[in-house]
């Protein structure tokens, strides 16, 4: 009993202070590389947080931790391109354009949902601003290094900047419906986008002129006033910030493609995209990508015309497609979500797995670093008891940057990092986090104004 307690204590300590990347040899597993086929009875050597070697019968150098993966499946860490976990603020809903806000300012490494996601094989998430505004805030790509305390240590350094845009009912409800402010309609949303981009263009131009003139001798002039919002939008126009656009209906998706064309924006990822199957060729032609649910719809009017074949249709049309969670519970079994595309659409194993690995990596601009098991890539690896697309699969070990962050065999009951000594003990609540639209967190109030429920 005492020994057990001691080992629990030791374990807690080791979980709380993991820090350094280990060198690991994963022995003899079935390696699902996603990009380079399936390698049976193969070893994966992890050195300094990177995948350093793939092959058979690799001998572990001294000091390497050996994980026996015989009979098990080794896959790249799962990537969720749409989440709202790990942040304390989601929706700056107060105005239709809030490009200047950044969820990375409110990272919270203590959220237990991050650990639960690790337990579902997830290693990287795109934690996003909500969809209450036509142009929302900037998002952050984080790695699930659960156990770190400094929020900066969650950030996937070097990942491209991204920003949330939103079409349809959410932004029109909050602003037009709730406050009688443009946008009240889908046309209004388009207007807000175009107006904002135009202002940003003018703003950049004014600064360019000022900076150019300033170098001239004897220059006298007033600089344009610094505007953080337009400054950010100007970066979007320059392609330095990638748009992730919340959308459902085909017509508005097509509209948004036209807005992008008109303003020279080359890259856009559509989120949800429930009617993406209707405009799949158009999306493919533009090079736009799509991040969808496997089979989640009908939670508001604009989300009725949907199909579980969406991901498969998009994929077959050549659209880089991912399956996301937008939810802390769904996030824990994205491998199930991906496997649904085999029932609805008959995607091959590799295609289905790509939906939760290399494809979301491409959508976040991090495909050179993660999303597949290849030498030189970051050692984000999940080990499953069975093929991850099997309903019997159980995630056993999740490794992030060479650090084992989840191990089913060493999974203490209480994984909280910070504890409130005053709080009553948290009761498990199965309804928590199941609100259908976490995208709208913080902005729900505005519905009352609209529907006069009060």
């Amino acid at each position: 009993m005492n020994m057990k307690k001691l080992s629990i204590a030791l374990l807690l300590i080791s979980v709380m202070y993991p820090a350094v990347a280990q060198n690991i040899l994963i022995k003899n597993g079935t390696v699902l590389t996603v990009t380079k086929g399936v390698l049976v009875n193969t070893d994966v050597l992890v050195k300094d947080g990177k995948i350093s070697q793939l092959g058979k019968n690799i001998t572990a150098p001294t000091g390497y931790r050996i994980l026996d993966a015989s009979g098990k499946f080794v896959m790249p860490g799962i990537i969720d391109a749409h989440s709202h976990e790990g942040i304390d603020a989601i929706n700056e809903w107060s105005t239709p354009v809030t490009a200047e806000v950044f969820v990375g300012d409110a990272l919270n490494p203590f959220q237990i949902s991050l650990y639960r996601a690790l337990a579902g094989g997830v290693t990287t998430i795109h934690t996003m601003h909500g969809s209450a505004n036509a142009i929302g805030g900037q998002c952050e790509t984080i790695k699930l290094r659960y156990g770190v305390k400094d929020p900066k240590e969650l950030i996937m350094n070097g990942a491209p900047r991204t920003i949330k845009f939103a079409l349809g009912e959410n932004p029109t409800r909050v602003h037009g419906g709730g406050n009688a402010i443009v946008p009240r309609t889908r046309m209004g949303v388009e207007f807000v986008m175009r107006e904002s981009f135009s202002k940003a263009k003018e703003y950049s131009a004014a600064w360019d002129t000022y900076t150019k003139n300033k170098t001239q001798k004897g220059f006298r002039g007033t600089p344009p006033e610094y505007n953080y919002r337009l400054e950010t939008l100007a970066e979007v126009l320059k392609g330095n910030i990638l748009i992730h656009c919340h959308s459902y209906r085909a017509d508005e998706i097509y509209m948004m493609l036209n807005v992008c064309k008109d303003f020279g924006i080359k890259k856009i990822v559509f989120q949800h995209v429930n009617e993406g199957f209707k405009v799949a060729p158009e999306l493919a032609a533009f090079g736009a990508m799509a991040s969808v649910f496997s089979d989640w719809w009908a939670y508001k009017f604009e989300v009725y015309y949907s199909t579980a074949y969406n991901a498969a249709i998009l994929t077959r049309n050549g659209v880089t497609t991912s399956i996301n969670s937008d939810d802390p519970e769904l996030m824990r079994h994205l491998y199930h979500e991906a496997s649904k595309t085999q029932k609805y659409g008959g995607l091959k194993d590799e295609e289905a797995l790509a939906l939760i690995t290399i494809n979301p990596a491409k959508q976040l601009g991090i495909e050179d670093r993660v999303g597949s098991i290849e030498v030189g890539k970051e050692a984000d690896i999940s080990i499953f008891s069975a093929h991850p697309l099997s309903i019997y699969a159980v995630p056993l070990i999740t490794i992030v940057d060479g650090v084992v962050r989840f191990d089913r065999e060493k999974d203490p009951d209480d994984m909280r990092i910070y504890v409130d000594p005053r709080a009553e003990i948290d009761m498990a609540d199965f309804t928590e986090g199941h609100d259908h639209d976490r995208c709208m967190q913080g902005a729900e109030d505005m519905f009352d104004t609209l529907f006069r429920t009060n």
Partner: protein
Amino acid sequence: METFYHKITVVFLVLIAFVPAWGQEERELGSVSRTYAITNVTIIQSPGRQVDGGTLVIKDGLIKSVGKNIAVPPEAIIIKGDSLFVYAGFIDGLSRVGVVKPREEIREKIKDPGNPPPDRAGISPYVDVRNFLNTADKNIEELRAIGFTTAHVVPYGGMLPGQSAIISLAGKSADDMVLVPVSSLYSELTPNERVYPVTVIGVMAKWRELYRQAVQAKSYEAVYASNRSGLEPPATNRILVSFNPVIDKRIPVLFKAEKFLDIQRVLALQSDLGFSLLAGDIKEGWDATTKLKASGTKVFLSLDLPEDKKKDDKKSEEKKDTITVEKDQLEKRKDEFMAKHVGQAFAYQQAGISFGFATLSVKTRDIQPNLRRMIKAGLTEDQALAALTINSAQLLGLSDRLGSLDPGKIANVIISERPYFHEKSKVKYVFVEGVPYKLDSKDSKKEESKIQLEGDWSLTATTPQGKSESTLNITKTEGKYKGKLSGNQLTETAEVNEIKLEGRKLNFSCLINVQGQQMKITIDATVEGDFFKGTVQVEGADSFPVEGKKVPKLNR
């Protein structure tokens, strides 16, 4: 008619007879001389510098001399300090003591929540806390009674409530209290309810924008000042201008940062923008020491601690089923974090960070017990004293004036029975800028027995609408006081079910009916013989000063 006439006469008589007496009850001692000598006393000049059986002379608001064999000036009022202990007055690094909360006005609904007027968005950095100082705030007296003589006070508000000031906890007027005006720009990460910014991410974005705009405006102002011809005049903007002393590093930004993540966010702003930072009311900062130290942030730790609930240890023979085991483990984790809270000050000491304390969110009566808890958790008494005195003085740039008992410094002095951190220690006198305040250390039970509550009291509440008179009839049954409150403005007599008297502190509440409207009032007052003086708090509304006078029994 006769009764009415009678009453008037009585009130008149009462006024004549007792008002001067009330004056004598003021506890500020007489000002025959401004020189004081505390003799044969244990003097703790600063942590670790102690003089036994020494003398401290205060003259004209300053410390004149301190040590052994000090000549006592002939004009000095002598306080015999045998068995007493003298300390420098304490400095509160962040609080709202003496600061009036502006009244909530009923304000127009904002049509566009994305573009609120700045003051509605919590952005009022031009507000000066001096405009909200109230010398009569009873918190001043309470905080002073446990040894605080100086406080760094901030205005109420949202993300940028305004400018702080360092004040003495005594004074005849707001200006009289102020030691250092505009000592910092105060800020919180507090978002607004329904207007931009409604989130912490909005607050941080707006903060960056304002700061960068201020830097830009300031530099354009300089360009314009050097040669105005041919340039558009700069816009005057009192919000942006308020940042100027911060940009010049003449004053720091004082940020409230209670939790670990608040500290991280404030440090993120600081590293982006480069201002000098004071972080105040830190409650969960034990993991942030390295980062705070590296950034050169000055810190004031909160004196608030989570309540230590004494658990009844029923460990004995109870069956350890799975639920109990699980509960025990969870309790253990709570204990672990309780220890971190209580041990925070010690952790900062260990990390080599000089810190002060903040009373912003602590109840005054918890301050001394909490200090003792921190000391029990590893902080030495000297370190605690340093945090309350020399360290705070140094962090606030007041070392030349405050923080220790040295000649030439401002005479902010505490005299206590027993060493200050002793459980039974009591502060007997506090000097603020050389003015003594005598504090009661008499046994409160004795006081209580002297007070005769039963009978009629005439109450006068001073409201903005004028004085409101009423009569309180107090009776005592089975050791409990009850009362009936009646008056012209009360539709019916109000029953007061329980009147509490602890020491000289009187407290009761009742439901009153004014013009058909029911409201709850609570009266807190201090009794002095046949008088009491205090406040009446109307639930959900304002509080007003109230005075009570015992009506002498009339022979009919």
